[in-house]
């Protein structure tokens, strides 16, 4: 049987080198596993499920990994597969990556997202609540809830609506941080700042938001952007680095001209 062809009954076989770490305090190490009977149509996470069923049947600990929707929209899955966040495909989350993308017999390395701001929890799961804290600092608009306003009462030019919508597709997965040589969070923050800076609803808090989110981002211990653009290449939603340029503009504008430093905590 040559590599690439499916094995007996059309299934595939893999050697997995998986990062195992009992807790944040544990040192962690790679452990090799063999997994057989993998259907080419399984997603990467389903393949891990299969591995875990085998481990549990043997009385071993299952490999912990984050997941939720498994349809590419929640941003929970967070694997570095063969050195690439979410694996080899462009614009694809790990949960939407299919095993037919690999060759039967391959050795696949699976690691967690690695960044000081994403501390290890267990095995492949890391704590990405740093993103939640950045959002809490300014990634929202303050508005009265209640019945939805009439949609056409606030006109939005189509190109701006499109750009805002593109930025809004960020699912907060953190692959940009994982792929960044500096573990910087600029693409995520840029997407959130852009999304709201482009829309009329975001205007009242525009300056305060970017100053506060920059501050929260730096406080979490992410690295500094050096425009390597690996974030854009790894982003499952194809968020463009042009949003980072917008973040830089928004920040410079607010830092130079925004008067209300008291409220933003003197940025």
């Amino acid at each position, binding site marked *: 049987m040559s590599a690439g062809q499916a094995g007996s009954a059309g299934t595939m076989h893999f050697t997995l*080198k998986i990062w195992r770490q009992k807790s944040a305090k544990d040192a962690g190490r790679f452990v090799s596993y063999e997994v057989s009977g993998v259907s080419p149509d399984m997603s990467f996470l389903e393949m891990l499920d299969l591995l875990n069923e085998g481990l549990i049947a043997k009385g071993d600990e299952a490999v912990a990994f984050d997941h939720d929707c498994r349809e590419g929209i929640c941003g929970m899955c967070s694997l570095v597969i063969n050195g690439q966040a979410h694996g080899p495909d462009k614009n694809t989350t790990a949960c939407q990556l299919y095993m037919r993308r690999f060759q039967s017999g391959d050795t696949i390395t699976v690691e967690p997202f690695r960044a000081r701001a994403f501390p290890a929890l267990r095995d492949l799961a890391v704590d990405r609540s740093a993103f939640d804290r950045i959002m809490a600092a300014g990634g929202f608009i303050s508005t009265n809830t209640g019945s939805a306003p009439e949609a056409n009462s606030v006109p939005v030019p189509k190109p701006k609506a499109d750009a805002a919508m593109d930025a809004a597709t960020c699912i907060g997965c953190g692959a940009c941080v994982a792929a960044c040589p500096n573990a910087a969070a600029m693409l995520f923050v840029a997407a959130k700042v852009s999304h709201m800076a482009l829309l009329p609803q975001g205007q009242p808090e525009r300056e305060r938001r970017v100053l506060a989110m920059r501050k929260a981002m730096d406080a979490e211990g992410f690295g500094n952007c050096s425009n390597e653009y690996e974030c854009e290449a790894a982003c499952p939603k194809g968020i463009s680095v042009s949003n980072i340029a917008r973040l830089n503009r928004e920040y410079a504008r607010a830092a130079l001209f925004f008067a209300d430093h008291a409220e933003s905590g003197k940025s």
Partner: protein
Amino acid sequence: MRCLVDLLESSIAKKISVALAGILLVGFLAVHLAGNLFLLEGPQAFNGYAEHLANNPLLPAAEILLAALFLWHIAAALVTRAQNRKARPEGYQSQRAKGGRTWGSRSMTATALLLLAFLIVHLKSFRFASDRSDLYALVMKDFQNKYYVGFYVLAMGALALHLSHGIQSAFQTFGVNHPRYTPWIKRTSVVVAVLLAAGFAFLPVWALVAGGAR
């Protein structure tokens, strides 16, 4: 002083300041190269130009500004790089690029350190030479040494790499990114980087091979 510390505290402000100093240094390099080309014209032309510069009353101020730009660019950029190393304490077993990085962007720290070494040697041999009465002879003497010339050319290779990423990166840092212009900015960045570096590297090689204009 307080505002300089604030600048270092904000990742984005720091980055803009590094890029601004970097772009101003590119401007300096262009002027510096134009001056160096007087070497081709022989001792009178080169020494005349040097004297002309030295007699300019604005020179001390310009030199202080230049030193400040270099020091700020180097210090803030190296602080940034040190912070970035700390941002990922546990590295990947394998990290494979997905298509964002370039040779220039990958090698920024390495080219920066080589340029720093070059800068120190360069200042020591020319700016702070003990006898600067005949600068043409001073320069030409060093350019007869093939190790000196080799190091010079190597450093200019580093400059080409540094600027091939640096110039276009600075535009992004200033917030200039547009589908119509960014592809041109990237190409121009590489062309300017290579032209500047090749211009500087040409002179010592010419001096070594042709023995200079005598």
